[in-house]
């Protein structure tokens, strides 16, 4: 416990909690009303999952620029399967997950076999996927698919939307994967010191493929959440996910160099960004100022973390 108090996660958690409480008071409790809280968490699910999707590849020192486009593509594909191909929702959901996984694996294989920088590979596949995403239904919107799926997207348990709980479960699984499984540890070893990992008989190539595959699968999960929670999808889905996908893990303390992950940090960072969103709606802040505020909050959160770290270091050496 005392160890946790010193981590950057704690700083983030403290800021997030403080922000939440302050906002709750400032809105005289409106934030805590069922509707508001529901909206708050429902739209937190996708940022969390997409942040994790990026985190998984960051762990092996790669980037995945295609996460957003892939989420959109999987969402469109799922909707198409239900509306045009007339398949039942569970099949469409599984198909979306499989599609995400498949495209992710292709990303990974391309990175391994061509030895081209992952940044460029995923940039290229991003444009390809954007084309495919648009190809599904042009610029038009899909609507009115499976009532069951939409009910699932709107359902809540104890005031928390089911989709958000799903995202938390996914986050827990990802955390467990990296902390406890052999495959997860191997990914981190490859990311941290590829050469040392190789000397220990770990195949870095396999790590790359696994990481990209997992990233794609998580994009598929984000797609399913989107389809379920939003009730309508079109080719623009995923366009605003690229930056948040990086912002959440990096604000959460994940290094771009690879070798480490922080699931709690990623979730908390996504939470923090969402808080700012909601604040805008609650106070009707001039939208022109909102970006300024997000910038300031993000910077402030990270700065505070470093200051704490410094104070802590000084305290322990003196």
């Amino acid at each position: 416990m005392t160890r946790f108090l010193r981590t950057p996660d704690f700083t983030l958690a403290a800021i997030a909690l403080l922000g939440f409480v302050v906002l709750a008071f400032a809105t005289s409790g409106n934030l805590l009303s069922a509707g508001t809280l529901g909206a708050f968490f429902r739209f937190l699910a996708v940022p969390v999952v997409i942040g994790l999707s990026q985190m998984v590849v960051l762990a092996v020192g790669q980037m995945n620029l295609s996460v957003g486009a892939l989420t959109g593509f999987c969402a469109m594909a799922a909707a198409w399967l239900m509306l045009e191909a007339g398949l039942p929702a569970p099949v469409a959901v599984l198909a979306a997950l499989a599609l995400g996984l498949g495209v992710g694996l292709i990303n990974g294989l391309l990175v391994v076999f061509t030895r081209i920088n992952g940044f460029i590979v995923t940039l290229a596949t991003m444009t390809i996927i954007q084309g495919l995403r648009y190809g599904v239904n042009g610029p038009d919107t899909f609507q009115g698919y499976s009532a069951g799926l939409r009910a699932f997207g709107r359902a809540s348990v104890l005031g928390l939307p089911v989709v958000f709980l799903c995202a938390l479960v996914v986050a827990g699984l990802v955390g467990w994967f990296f902390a406890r499984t052999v495959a997860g540890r191997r990914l981190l070893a490859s990311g941290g010191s590829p050469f040392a990992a190789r000397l220990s008989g770990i195949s870095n190539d396999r790590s790359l493929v696994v990481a990209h595959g997992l990233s794609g699968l998580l994009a598929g999960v984000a797609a399913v959440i989107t389809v379920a929670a939003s009730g309508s999808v079109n080719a623009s889905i995923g366009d605003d996910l690229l930056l948040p996908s990086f912002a959440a893990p990096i604000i959460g303390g994940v290094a771009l160099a690879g070798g480490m992950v922080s699931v709690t940090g990623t979730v908390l960072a996504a939470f923090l960004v969402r808080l700012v969103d909601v604040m805008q709606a609650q106070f009707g802040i001039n939208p022109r100022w909102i970006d300024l505020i997000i910038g300031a909050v993000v910077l402030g959160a990270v700065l505070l973390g470093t200051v704490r770290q410094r104070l802590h270091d000084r305290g322990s050496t003196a």
Partner: protein
Amino acid sequence: TKKSDNDESAATSRGPEQVKIALIPGGAHPYFQPWKDAAATAKTELKLGDVTFNETSDWDQTKQNDVIKSLAAQGYNAFGIFGVSPENINSTFEDLKRQGFAVGSLASCPAGDVDKADFCLSTDTGEAAYKATKTAIEAIGGQGTIAHLTGNKVDSNTQRRIEGVQKAVDETGGKVKVIQTVTDIDTDLQSAQKAVADLLAAKGKQINGIVTTAYNPAVAAAEGVKQTKLPIKVIAIDDDKTILDGIKDGAVAGTVVQNPVGQASVGSYALMKLSGGCTIAQPGVVIDSGSFVVTKANVDTYDQERQTKTNELKTAFDGQYLVCK
């Protein structure tokens, strides 16, 4: 010493079969889809060399300029353009004019008072927003609060829409207030949905009507209001299938439709004439292509009204805007 550069801009006169028209929207958007058919129709009806529709500019002015130049290199010689950036598009028009091409600004006019295209055939966005707000005010019974959801804030069309909404609200003499204006949520559907959900969560109970003047916010608002079951009147924009369905099932109180078909077909007609040696009486003239309020009452018949307007526009071009020898 600088060479004079007017040597090429002498207008040439082309027969219809030599006219190749390019219709270029700002990017992929449902609004422009009717242009595709209108282009094909125009080609056959007017017996033009070619009419193409190219939506690859991806909402980026630089890319749009590229697309335009590529089409020019392909031999297209008349252009109907929705400028991505109303601030910059005059330069593009000027460029095309210097090369002797006929240019129409379609569906959006350049910012400011100057229009370097031959003409601008577009919805008066301020007027459309005004009409939408009027409809909303009527729907909420002339009293209450409304929210306005729209697109890119660094766009002068958005500024005009905000003004249009304000104008209609001001006319009520304080009985109706704008509680919030949310911009920048037309880039993608998810952001729009999120913004609508947050808005409804925060102020849903105080809001009586929502005016949307961009596509994704309109879809999101219709859906969001339906889900929360709040008694809010949503005024949408355009006549995408999802929105018409919304009107029919009551989720949407009304919509303001524009005239994309008219813009494309009349625009093509005017471009053909201009290429054929006609000149524009008043270069840079701004022509409203019309906007129409659609509610449940006229959802099946509004298109006739629109076609009438289109025919009027064509006559107006022949009689009023064009000077032909």
